[in-house]
């Protein structure tokens, strides 16, 4: 993809093929590479989080606050209060203590409480336009307006049909998921059944998109192996790979030898 030295391409290809070795069978090389990946990721992220978040948003304002205090409570001294956030932040690590586990629940509670408080605003702002948009005219004009809106656009059969299907699907799916009461009456049972059928169409669409996503990740790796690594591989390595593949295929196709049991001998 981007220009890199041959040894870098080889390094990337070795780790790629090492992980793909799992497709044949679980093996030590794969497990070693996973350990390396997790270690590198954790160590790297640790420093980046400090550089991008904790440093500029906590450490530097706190240091400026203490510096202001040292200069006779100059403006900005209040920033020294950030040290309290440092003490609160250490409470997370009491998760590892059996005796003082409850201290970690304080910060967990604060985080959960803040998230819960935001839920009201978030859900309302996110879904209110969705609710209003769901009320669609069942007989619609070509410009999307209802029939009796004063518009002069002609009535659109396809838009009306789409709107009927749209609104009907929302209602049927909501009825299907209403488990608070029993689906006794015929209209409710029918709506729930229709909701289940319409959900199947939606799940099929989910599956189709899932396939697209999973394939895309694999194709990027395949593109690297074919376009970046392939051209720099010496011929003898290709011969070795092909020989390995042919051996694997032969081993897979070979019938296992017949076991000599007492019954066979008889």
């Amino acid at each position: 993809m981007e220009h890199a030295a041959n040894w870098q391409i080889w390094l990337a290809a070795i780790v790629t093929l090492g992980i793909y070795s799992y497709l044949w069978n679980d093996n030590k090389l794969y497990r070693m590479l996973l350990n390396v990946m997790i270690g590198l990721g954790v160590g790297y992220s640790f420093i980046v989080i400090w550089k991008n978040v904790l440093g500029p948003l906590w450490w530097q304002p706190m240091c400026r606050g203490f510096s202001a205090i040292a200069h006779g409570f100059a403006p900005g001294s209040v920033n020294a209060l950030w040290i309290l956030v440092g003490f609160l932040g250490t409470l997370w690590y009491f998760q590892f203590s059996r005796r003082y586990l409850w201290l970690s629940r304080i910060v967990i509670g604060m985080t959960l409480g803040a998230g819960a408080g935001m839920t009201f605003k978030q859900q309302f702002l996110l879904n209110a336009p969705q609710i209003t948009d769901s009320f669609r005219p069942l007989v619609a004009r070509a410009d999307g307006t209802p029939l009796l809106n004063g518009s002069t656009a002609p009535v659109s059969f396809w838009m009306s049909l789409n709107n009927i299907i749209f609104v009907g699907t929302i209602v049927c799916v909501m009825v299907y998921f209403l488990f608070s009461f029993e689906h006794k009456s015929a209209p409710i049972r029918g709506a729930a059944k229709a909701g289940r059928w319409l959900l199947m169409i939606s799940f099929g669409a989910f599956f189709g998109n899932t396939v697209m996503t999973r394939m895309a990740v694999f194709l990027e790796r395949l593109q690297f192996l074919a376009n970046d690594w392939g051209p720099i591989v010496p011929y003898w390595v290709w011969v070795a790979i092909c020989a390995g593949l042919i051996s694997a295929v032969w081993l897979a196709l070979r019938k296992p030898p017949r076991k000599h049991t007492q019954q066979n001998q008889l």
Partner: protein
Amino acid sequence: MNVLSRLQDIDRRWLYLALALSCLVPFLVTIRLPVYVSPETRSLYEAIDRCPKDKVILVDSAWDAGSLGENWGQVEVVFDHMLRKGIKFIVISLDITPLGPQFADKVISKLVKTKYPYRKYGVDWVNLGFTKGDWQAMQQIAKDIRRQFKRDSRGWSLDDAKHLPLMQRVHNIDDIYMIYSVTYSPMENWIPFVHGVYGTPIGFGCAGIQSTTYYRYILSKQLVGMLVGVRGAAEYDALLYPNVRERQSLGTQLIVPQAFGHTAIIVAVILGNVGYFAARKGERKVGTRR
């Protein structure tokens, strides 16, 4: 057991090999197929194309290796569009991954090196780096970007007029025309906390698997457009370069292998079902004989 019924018991490794080989073919042989441009891609293209000269586009490029196959192409085509048209942009990476800014830098540096050597960092684009905070950070950025970012990803202060002249005219949401969030699963909080309050258009670039939950926002006009997976990038590339030979984005490179891969999976499902029904038929025959 007849031959057909064995189709449902093929060893998984044969399947893996078949999938890999079918996807490999388009990398070895050039195959060009027509691309259908979807409405969500077209509307995103048109929205970005309309960006006024005095505003910038904020790109939240918060993806990493896990979604590189889809997101690389999605940012590549949009960066290509903006660099070509001279639309100024700011790159950030919000939550999700600290590697986001580096991947964005890679995409931009490749485009600048190959196509737009006259575009300069600090003048045409700025990368502010990674930050955390979800909706809190979004609100901060909207009210005053300098409260969330003190320096750019290279360490220069945002008030450094010599290195970052672009940032001297970007302060808050008033200076941002549109937000384009690209990641595996873009944060929906952009919609209520930025679009809902300030009316700023939001566009998403997302993985295919996540796109099914975002179409509802396009219908309610909370999203101005969306690039879906590899095909979104390929479609946008088709709008940028009507001549298929000029298209070089990752999306265009991967869309034909993707087609072969989908076909292989469809064939596998059909074979599995043929084997299943053949086995069931065989079991029924054996049942009647007994």
